[in-house]
């Protein structure tokens, strides 16, 4: 195994610190970098996954000192704001549900950072993501509960060729144990599941600040108005809470958001059954497996981060992936990523554009 020049991205959290330490143990020449992603570090949440606050920067520096590797901070705040934060707001404004972590990996961590690293003579970027790379392909982590292959599936084969995920063969519990054993103070730092650039976790408030009040009608599947809202961006497909309908439905069952039409700001609600979709179209697939599909392929598809994989058949139609689920799924939102798996190896990822309840006859 050759010794590579590795740039380890340290977020200030336990995973990236342990990953960097492993890269050193594996004999690589490792340099740590912390990404300053916030133009205003005090506005980002503390104790987050990392990358964001002064506390995280300090934790990352401390980890690098303990591991014994050089440490630098790269200012990516402008690019992060343009590629991730602004995209997040724009997607919601368009009635879609974005996944900013996917964008961050796609545009920042394995693009902007990787490009810069390669220009400076590094061979690979190492992170603490829970995933595996085998034969140039992305594979789930052994820890299904922490697996992050879903948010990494957007990486191209070329990007994967320069990525390193040392933690894929370890569970989260084992990682914390190892970190403690290595003397990394961040061993007990809690994980966060929320969005790093929304400090108080209030996505609706954040969007309201950026998009303002945008009231509109809530209608049922017949087009009858059943309520009003003050910002469609606050809703997501499959959402039940916070609908504030004028009166309950005749059948007494809850109503769910089926779709959001951004121009008229109309939110359509329906029953749980109405939420079911079988047919999903996803655009601009990224092939991390053996290449573009040439014929229909049986696989499983994951439709949200930490969602259960659904058995499906996928076929490539021009630039679109047409995915047919064996059993219907609920709450599938345009803008989310669909990731195709063959067992636990990633085949492809693509962005969901449309969904349909039934396969047309």
């Amino acid at each position, binding site marked *: 195994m050759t010794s590579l020049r590795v740039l380890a991205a340290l977020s200030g959290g336990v995973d990236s610190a342990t990953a960097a330490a492993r890269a050193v143990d594996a004999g690589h020449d490792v340099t740590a970098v912390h990404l300053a992603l916030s133009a205003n570090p005090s506005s980002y949440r503390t104790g987050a996954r990392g990358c964001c606050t002064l506390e995280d*920067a300090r934790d990352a520096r401390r980890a690098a000192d303990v591991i014994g590797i050089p440490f630098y901070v790269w200012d990516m705040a402008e690019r992060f704001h343009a590629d991730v934060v602004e995209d997040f707001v724009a997607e919601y404004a368009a009635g879609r549900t974005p996944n900013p972590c996917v964008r961050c990996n796609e545009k920042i961590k394995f693009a902007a950072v990787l490009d810069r690293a390669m220009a400076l003579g590094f061979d690979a970027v190492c992170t603490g993501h829970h995933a595996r790379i085998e034969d140039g392909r992305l594979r789930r982590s052994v820890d299904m509960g922490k697996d992050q292959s879903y948010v990494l599936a957007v990486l191209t084969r070329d990007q994967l060729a320069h990525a390193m995920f040392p933690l894929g063969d370890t569970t989260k519990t084992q990682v914390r144990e190892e970190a403690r054993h290595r003397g990394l103070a961040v061993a007990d730092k809690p994980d966060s599941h929320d969005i790093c650039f929304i400090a108080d976790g209030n996505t609706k408030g954040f969007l309201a600040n950026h998009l303002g009040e945008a009231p509109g009608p809530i209608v049922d599947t017949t087009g009858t108005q059943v309520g009003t809202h003050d910002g469609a961006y606050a809703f997501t497909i499959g959402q039940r809470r916070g609908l504030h309908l004028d009166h309950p439905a005749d059948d007494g069952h809850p109503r769910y958001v089926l779709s959001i039409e951004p121009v008229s700001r109309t939110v359509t609600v329906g029953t749980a059954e109405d939420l079911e979709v079988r047919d999903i179209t996803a655009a601009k697939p990224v092939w991390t497996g053996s290449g573009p599909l040439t014929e229909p392929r049986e696989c499983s598809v994951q439709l949200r981060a930490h969602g259960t994989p659904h058995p499906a058949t996928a076929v490539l139609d021009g630039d679109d992936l047409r995915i047919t689920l064996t059993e219907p799924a609920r709450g599938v939102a345009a803008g989310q990523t669909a990731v195709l798996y063959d067992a636990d190896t990633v085949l492809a990822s693509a962005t969901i554009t449309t969904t349909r309840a039934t396969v047309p006859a």
Partner: protein
Amino acid sequence: MLPEAIEVMTEELAQLGNPSSLHNAGRRARRVVEESREQIAEVLRARPSEVVFTSGGTEADNLAIKGLYWARAGQDPHRRRLLVTSIEHHAVLDSVRWLHAHEGADACYLDVNGDGVLTPEALRAAIEADPEAVALVSVMWANNEVGAVQPICELAEVAHAYGIVFHSDAVQAAAQLPVEFAGSGADALTVTSHKLGGPIGVGALLLRRGIEPVPVLHGGGQERDVRSGTLDAPAIRAFATAAVVSAERREAEAKRLSVLRDDLIRQITEAVPDAVLNGPPPGPGRLPGNAHFSFPGCEGDALLMLLDAKDIACSTGSACTAGVAQPSHVLLAMGADEDRARGSLRFSLGHTSTQDDVNATAAVIGEAVERARRAASR
């Protein structure tokens, strides 16, 4: 740290005593402190009674700026103007900023010329905008980033012509230039131990008789009530030893450093023809061990990483709280645009620097600049 300084400090650590105490150990410590005070005073051409020990240059600057401002504004509330150059060290600038934000001080940051020098004419013009309102003028003896030596005697004279107190931060200069308190005209002078090869954590503010700052630290009344706090006798003894040794070697060392530095400049310019030397031309107007270059098209922090990886220590000059390398405020103050300021690096030569270090830097700078340019274009 100079081996001589380490030796005496280690010796003193074994004999630790509080110089303010009455018992034996205290008396001995006090003797050590007073002897050290005399030695430092002699090196700097000051009276022992003019030397006030502090925890370093930052504290001395804080005491000078805040203490002297409070004293003057206290005597005469009209005096609210603080005149400092825009290229001062942050210990001076941030103290001024704080006084502006919290005490109503009128902060005036004076422009330097393209070489990084504040001219006596520029100071005079600034004072004359409202001479009766000026509390204090502070100008560093030499700028640590671009090496510009300031005309301290002339500047102090200008200040005194208007009855204004003059302070100078000589932290960087004392190691490489003949800094003398008596002849300089300065009323207050900051020096620090670690720049002279002594330990970190101790320094001094020299204050002319009659110049009494309001204290920043209150407590036991040490240092004639100007600066309270138990004195660190071991560190002070090491400070004094370092000051004496470095003064003995200063002239020869300055010559040696100039030769090395001039060769570094020559070799870097050969390797990177479009590199721009910032600050005054090599000579008496520039610190002997200082070189500072702008490398067009590069990001300084990428260059820093590349050179660091080859064990060559240099500096961009600044870092924000999170640790992101910032463009040098000195370069910006001299009129450079942000891009040029971002692509700049300071190379400092010191008592451990050799010709090998210079050659090693020159050997890698060409490729490093090329890589940093590639990284910047992404």
